[in-house]
């Protein structure tokens, strides 16, 4: 019984955080790209455009959902929600931290707890396979959308994306298989745990550093394939604006359109989390607590808070006088929370995990701001003629060395 | 240890390189590969010679078991003794010279790399043949050189005559190889092994009839390979091939394989007197026969070809009268001067822009002096003028023949005279008098005349310095040398006489030949047309076989019986199928229904069988 309750609580919590993240990821993306291109980015709605996502959501919900004629209604409507569904399933098995224990509560005579639970929704011991399965199912959403729209652009987009995702799933799987050889387990938590500890006392035993064969290559291959899996630039041919007028979701509007965006960002987050768990040691800090890795988080928040206060005291824009100090206070609060001993063992793993995921997401956005788009034949040729062989070779070498040294 | 395998392996590597990549390689590279591979194997032979004290210490190396069935096994064995050593030296030494010569001679030919690939392959097989430690391996080499000879005769495959000559050589050799293989079977049956040493050790104990049969069959093989009566017809046509090929394969090495094989099998032959007698007679007959034909030919290469045939006859004569070592001696010297003759002829043809008819040559003395002097050495050597190479070996054979049967000696001596005559006839027609050809003849490049000089030196001194009977005295009884001045005088005298007549007829009194020819009109035409042997064979053997197989085998057996059976089966099955096709509606879903019904029936049957119901 309590299992159900705890799960429900975690579910609600994660769903809320995750959805907010998705909404704000868009804001972050716009901001980052803007600054890369030396623009302001969204800055009207709320301080620094912080309310922009909210506004977008409201706009998308209240917009009229156009249902084009001659479409296959069922699939036309089913496709976006299928996509979102698949994207959200994956999140449910991502562990993002160690265990948390809620001390026993005494209400009257009856005591509840203490409850100890892992920081994840479900611990599947074939988790990584499940991730692969879900990502392979993700194709349907896009392909169906493209086909059901009854529009040649969207059909081409759909076909392209299914071909692209099928092609890039092989290097992706192979790149995932390589670190698994070292880890010896398929459970995501288990994989993350095998990367705990340090070599020579300070080099983290993450997969990308791990002996006998550092998985840096498979990490790179994984990231490239991930770009293709999530249809991001430079592999966003399914929605190539200038040739396919936004590809498979050209016919979609309002909530259905938003669903595809949610799916895309959710997939990004999933992929980055998987990359973190597989290659970057999950929630293992970059250097040992002995050398004060626990103090880095409070330090960062304290400094940022200080900066905010400083800028609030002598503001560049009028409303900074109000907003920035507020942020500063919030940051100070976070810093204090991070430094508060009882919460440290709970928050530190989450901090490190989110830091790594955030960094990878930043890389995604950064590349989108930087690189041009591939041509379709280049894309396929790259997948089959270069990426796949390299991934295969990497897997072979890894297997050989693992067999040799273990 | 001694790495004997390296000797044939080197040319084989050359063959692989040139054969596979030759198309892309430059001529320089091809030359380097082809020549170096052979020269290296020659050097390795020399090293082996020093290591084995020139064969006095026999080397036997077994590399792997090739065939094994029951207690009968054939290994890939190479072995070296004195005989092998001599052959190795001849093959690789002359082979190297001819390779060098070819680089100059073939310089402007099509399929350059193909030529050298074949040549290297030939070297490989020839060396395998010589090194073989058992009959089967020898047979491998035997067939291999046959193949290469076929390929190289037909090298100019755009010329119909060349391809025909190739086929002819191949087919005629098949007859000989048939005999050889029969001989091998007999040996397996009677000796239970093919290795030389056990066979020869056991040979004396065997009944004479068996040995005679084996020896005669071996002789058939040898006759095919070494162009003896009645299988000599392919060799003259083989001159369609490039001249270096004629020199290497059809004069120096391959055609002497028969002699080598008979000598190698001496242990068998010596215990089969009848076979020996046959060998001697065939050899003598061939010698005379070919020599007479040689008189009348005008194609310079044909002349030398017939002289080759007759010299081979000499060798067989020597083998037949028991003077094996003399035969080998003559084989060696003949390799020297006949190779020289052919290369010289090649040089002449080169000089005359491909002209081969001697009537359009003459007066080359001025244009190609080196060729002339070297050819002169060769001609004197073949005519048995002392102290050149030919004299010693030929004299040894004749002496042995005299002890065997005087009449054979006289015939042989006469043949020697004829030989001298027609060789010098060719020489005078080519070099003296006035140039009657077209274009401006010129001396050949150094890459061509250098080998000529080397061979000339060998033709002069080779016979005296390499006294084969002494070298081989361990293996074969050294024929005691009765200082019979009469024989010596005769064998020298006929040679000189022949030269003198040739000089008179073709230099002093040049219209005499025509009158002689008209005087012996019918005889002359007979000889000029090579006794119509080819025509006779054609009428007697080829035509009947073609006719017979066309009528009986083709129309009768194949079309009648076999096709009848096949078609009958076809008709029957078509009839049955006509009935069955009614079931085949061609509709997949009907088929599926049948399948389902069938599975239901199967389940029912199984259930009933298991007593489920």
């Amino acid at each position, binding site marked *: 019984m309590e299992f159900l309750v705890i799960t429900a609580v975690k579910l609600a919590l994660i769903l809320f955080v995750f959805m907010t993240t998705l909404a704000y990821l868009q804001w972050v993306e716009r901001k980052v790209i803007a600054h890369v291109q030396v623009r302001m980015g969204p800055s009207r709605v709320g301080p620094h455009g912080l309310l922009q996502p909210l506004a977008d959501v409201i706009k998308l919900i209240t917009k009229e959902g156009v249902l084009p004629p001659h479409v296959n209604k069922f699939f036309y409507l089913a496709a976006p929600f299928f996509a979102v569904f698949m994207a959200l399933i994956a999140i449910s098995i991502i562990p993002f931290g160690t265990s948390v224990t809620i001390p026993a509560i005494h209400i009257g005579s009856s005591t509840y707890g203490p409850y100890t639970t892992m920081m994840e929704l479900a611990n599947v011991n074939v988790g990584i396979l499940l991730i692969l399965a879900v990502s392979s199912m993700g194709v349907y959403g896009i392909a169906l959308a493209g086909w059901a729209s009854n529009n040649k652009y969207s059909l081409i987009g759909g076909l392209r994306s299914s071909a692209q995702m099928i092609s890039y799933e092989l290097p992706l799987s192979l790149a995932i298989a390589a670190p698994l050889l070292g880890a010896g387990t398929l459970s995501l938590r288990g994989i993350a745990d095998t990367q705990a500890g340090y070599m020579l006392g300070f080099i983290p035993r993450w997969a990308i550093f791990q002996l006998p064969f550092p998985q840096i290559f498979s990490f790179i291959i994984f990231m490239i394939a991930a770009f293709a899996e999530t249809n991001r630039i430079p592999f966003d041919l399914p929605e190539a604006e200038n040739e396919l007028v936004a590809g498979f979701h050209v016919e979609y509007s309002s909530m259905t359109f938003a669903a595809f965006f949610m799916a895309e960002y959710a997939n990004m987050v999933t992929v980055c989390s998987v990359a973190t768990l597989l290659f970057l040691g999950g929630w293992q800090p970059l250097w040992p607590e002995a050398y004060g890795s626990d103090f880095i988080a409070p330090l960062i928040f304290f400094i940022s808070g200080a900066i905010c206060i400083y800028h609030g005291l002598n503001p560049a824009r009028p409303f900074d006088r109000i907003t920035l100090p507020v942020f500063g206070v919030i940051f100070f609060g976070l810093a204090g929370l991070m430094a508060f001993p009882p919460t440290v063992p709970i928050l530190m793993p989450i901090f490190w995990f989110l830091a790594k995921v955030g960094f990878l997401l930043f890389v995604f956005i950064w590349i989108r701001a930087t690189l041009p788009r591939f041509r379709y034949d280049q894309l396929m040729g790259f997948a089959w003629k270069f990426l796949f062989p390299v991934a295969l070779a990497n897997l072979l070498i890894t297997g050989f060395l693992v067999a040799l040294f273990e | 240890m001694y790495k004997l395998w390296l000797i044939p392996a080197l040319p084989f590597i050359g063959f692989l390189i040139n054969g596979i990549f030759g198309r892309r390689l430059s001529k320089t590279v091809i030359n380097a590969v082809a020549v170096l591979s052979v020269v290296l194997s020659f050097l390795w032979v020399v090293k082996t010679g020093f290591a084995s004290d020139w064969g006095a210490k026999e080397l036997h190396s077994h590399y792997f078991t090739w065939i094994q069935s029951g207690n009968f096994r054939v290994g890939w064995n190479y072995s070296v003794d004195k005989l092998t050593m001599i052959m190795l030296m001849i093959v690789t030494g002359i082979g190297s010279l001819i390779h060098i010569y070819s680089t100059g001679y073939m310089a402007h030919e099509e399929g350059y790399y193909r030529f050298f690939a074949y040549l290297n392959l030939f070297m490989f097989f020839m060396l395998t043949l010589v090194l073989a430690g058992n009959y089967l391996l020898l047979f491998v080499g035997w067939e291999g050189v046959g193949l290469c000879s076929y390929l190289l005769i037909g090298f100019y495959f755009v010329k119909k005559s060349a391809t025909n000559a190739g086929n002819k050589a191949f087919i005629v050799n098949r007859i000989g190889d048939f005999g050889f293989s029969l001989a091998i079977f007999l040996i397996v049956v009677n000796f239970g092994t093919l290795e030389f040493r056990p066979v020869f050790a056991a040979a004396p104990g065997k009944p004479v009839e068996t040995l005679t049969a084996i020896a005669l069959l071996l002789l058939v093989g040898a006759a095919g390979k070494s162009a003896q009566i009645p299988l000599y017809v392919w060799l003259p046509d083989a001159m369609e091939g490039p001249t270096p090929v004629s020199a290497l394969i059809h004069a120096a090495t391959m055609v002497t394989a028969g002699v080598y094989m008979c000598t190698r099998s001496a242990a068998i032959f010596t215990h089969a007197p009848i076979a020996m007698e046959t060998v001697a007679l065939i050899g003598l007959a061939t010698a005379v026969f070919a020599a007479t034909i040689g008189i009348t030919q005008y194609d310079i290469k044909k002349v030398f070809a017939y002289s080759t045939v007759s010299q081979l006859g000499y060798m067989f004569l020597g083998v037949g009268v028991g003077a094996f070592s003399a035969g080998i001696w003559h084989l060696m010297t003949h390799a020297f001067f006949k190779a020289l003759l052919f290369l010289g002829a090649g040089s002449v043809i080169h000089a005359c822009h491909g002209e081969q008819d001697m009537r359009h040559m003459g007066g080359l003395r001025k244009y190609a002096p080196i060729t002339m002097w070297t050819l002169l050495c060769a001609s004197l050597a073949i005519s048995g003028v002392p102290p050149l190479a030919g004299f010693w070996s030929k004299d040894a054979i004749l002496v042995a023949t005299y002890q065997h049967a005087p009449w054979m000696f006289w015939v042989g001596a006469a043949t020697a005279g004829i030989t001298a005559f027609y060789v010098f006839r060719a020489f005078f027609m080519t070099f003296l008098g006035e140039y009657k050809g077209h274009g401006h003849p010129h001396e050949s490049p150094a890459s061509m005349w250098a080998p000529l000089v080397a061979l000339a030196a060998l033709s002069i001194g080779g016979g005296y310095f390499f006294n084969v009977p002494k070298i081989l005295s361990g293996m074969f009884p050294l024929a005691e040398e009765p200082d019979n001045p009469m024989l010596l005088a005769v064998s020298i005298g006929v040679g000189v006489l022949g030269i003198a007549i040739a000089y008179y007829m073709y230099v002093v009194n040049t219209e005499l030949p025509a009158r002689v020819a008209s005087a012996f009109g019918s005889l002359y035409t007979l000889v000029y047309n090579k006794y119509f042997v080819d025509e006779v064979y054609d009428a007697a053997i080829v035509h009947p076989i073609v006719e017979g197989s066309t009528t009986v085998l083709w129309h009768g057996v194949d079309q009648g019986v076999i096709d009848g059976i096949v078609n009958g089966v076809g008709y029957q099955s078509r009839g049955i199928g006509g009935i069955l096709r009614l079931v*085949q*509606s*061609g*509709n*997949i*879903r009907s088929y*599926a*229904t049948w399948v*389902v019904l069938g599975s239901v029936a199967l389940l029912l049957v199984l259930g009933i069988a298991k007593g489920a119901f």
Partner: protein
Amino acid sequence: MEPSDALKLLQNGVPISWYLTLSAVLFATGVAGFLFRRNIITVFMCIELMLNAVNLSFIAFAHQHRQVSGQLFTFFVMVVAAAEAAVGLAIILTVFRNRSTLNIDEINTLRN
């Protein structure tokens, strides 16, 4: 079934025979599709359905005998199915390209 059986079910889980029955039903459905559908792609999918049904019984047997072999058979069936799908769809493509129809009743070249 009387309540005791129901209770037993709740405690012990699912009888293997139920799994087998399910697989039989699925298989029969596949057969039906094969028999009554005309679109060659649908027919092909019905074949896949039958394969899946058989896989289910394999897994059930594996569980029954506590052996992994049955699951391996399923694995091999999957591999074969993948190969079959690749080739089969390629054939369908060619057929469609040549005859421009997907109706198996019209694809009866074997007949004459």
